[in-house]
């Protein structure tokens, strides 16, 4: 069990209250609640189709919730203008499940892309080249700067995507299944990288994963999303020793 010193910090950077989202008759989220504290790693687990990705997309405004409050660093994103939302998004990094690298651009251009919109606000004194190199060095891929995404392996793509997420130095990082589709060794490397990033930039992280090992290593707290609600919240140890059959099902190997 890892040291949970960050949880003692009471500042909430991200909060969801009573979130509802339906697709026709399919009620995906039925009053979901969660809080993410500053510097914390919160892992969300749930079955496939339980609404984890829908929830995380509502969080960044990619999807409109039916009702509920979504507060990011004290701002209710459901009431923000597009301009204000775009500015706020600079503080939220999003690592997509499939990396989502722009495949018509080189690695360098992929990393430069977010800077086009936010560089003046966030990096007044830095030049783009230095920022790109620093971000790539952080993930150990400085040598791949001029490669195309099609020339990268799955693990390298995930690292480049993480570098692209880091380039704006976000305060919150959302990881959508960061280790899915990777072999165990590469998955472990990505987990170590996530820990390094958290230490270096003191980010708060929301991690959606099916990977119990990943959850065990990286989580300060865990939340189980079952039947569209926050069914259980607690540390890995507390949840993995629970007698509740619905919770136990997640930790069976």
């Amino acid at each position, binding site marked *: 069990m890892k040291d949970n010193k960050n949880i003692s910090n009471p500042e909430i950077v991200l909060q969801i209250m009573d979130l509802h989202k339906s697709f026709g008759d399919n009620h995906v989220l039925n009053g979901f609640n969660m809080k993410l504290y500053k510097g914390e790693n919160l892992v969300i687990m749930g079955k496939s189709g339980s609404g984890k990705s829908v929830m995380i997309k509502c969080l960044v405004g990619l999807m409109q919730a039916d009702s509920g409050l979504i507060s990011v660093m004290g701002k209710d994103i459901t009431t923000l203008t597009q301009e204000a939302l775009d500015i706020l998004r600079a503080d939220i990094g999003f690592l997509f499940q499939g990396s989502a*690298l722009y495949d018509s651009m080189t690695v360098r251009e992929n990393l430069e892309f977010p800077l086009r*919109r936010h560089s003046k606000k966030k990096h007044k004194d830095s030049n783009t080249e230095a920022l790109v190199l620093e971000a790539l060095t952080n993930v150990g891929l400085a040598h791949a700067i001029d490669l195309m995404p099609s020339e990268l392996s799955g693990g390298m793509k995930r690292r480049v995507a993480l570098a692209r997420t880091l380039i704006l130095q976000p305060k919150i990082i959302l990881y959508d299944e960061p280790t899915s589709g990777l072999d165990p060794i590469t998955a472990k490397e990505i987990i170590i990288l996530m820990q390094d990033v958290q230490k270096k930039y003191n980010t708060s992280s929301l991690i959606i994963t099916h990977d119990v090992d990943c959850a065990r290593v990286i989580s300060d707290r865990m939340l189980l999303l079952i039947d569209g609600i926050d069914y259980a919240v607690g540390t890995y140890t507390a949840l993995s020793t629970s007698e509740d059959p619905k919770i136990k099902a997640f930790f069976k190997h």
Partner: protein
Amino acid sequence: MSGNSKIKNRLHVFLIELGDLSFFTSRFFKEVFKHPFEFKELFRQCYNMGNRSLLLVGITCFIIGLVLDLQTRPTLMEFGAVSWMPSMVSISIVREIGPIITALVCAGRIGSGIGAELGSMRVTEQIDAMEVSGTNPFKYLVVTRVLAVTLMLPLLVIIGDAISLFGSFLVENLKGNVSFTLYFNQVFDSIEFGDIIPATIKSFFFGLAIGIVGCYKGYYCTKGTEGVGKAANSAVVVSSLLLFIIDFIAVFVTDIFYDL
């Protein structure tokens, strides 16, 4: 489901699609005048669409010019009117065949390309990634592509017309010993601004239709790789159909002006 309700259902889907397409088009016109302007991406798209379609348009139009001349020649010879060949070919190419053939080739080449590219970006979450990074993907991806195809199509039509006429000249030269100067003197004597201007204006609308439909189908693509294929396919089908509708309206409007 009864036949009646099937028709109702299809009509309902068609009207919703039409509404969405209209909304998409109005969004394009709103965004096109807003900052920031993506000039670099616009030039890149112009180069991609213009330069890379040139060979296909050139070959197609060259063959059309050859075939048109070869097919029409015997009939005109029968009436002893073979000297009218340059006039007939030039007017039919400039007014109608050049723009519509070039537009159809571009609907296949560019429309399907846009549909497949944006569709694949949608299903692999690249468009979502752009949005999350605070960039307006509609502005970056859609506005630049629609503008590029709208600007490039009239240029391709002009080049295609010239190549078609050259194809026709080759047949005339080989079969009728007509010189380059004589052929093109007759061509330019026959063509008026009243032929060129409406054809150029409708080419802009052809480009706009190809761009809007291709982007719309790709941008709202769903259902994974199957959806990407459908987006590319329906981009070609719908834009080709739209081209003929626009062509009919353009000819109809031009005809009214000729009558005035």
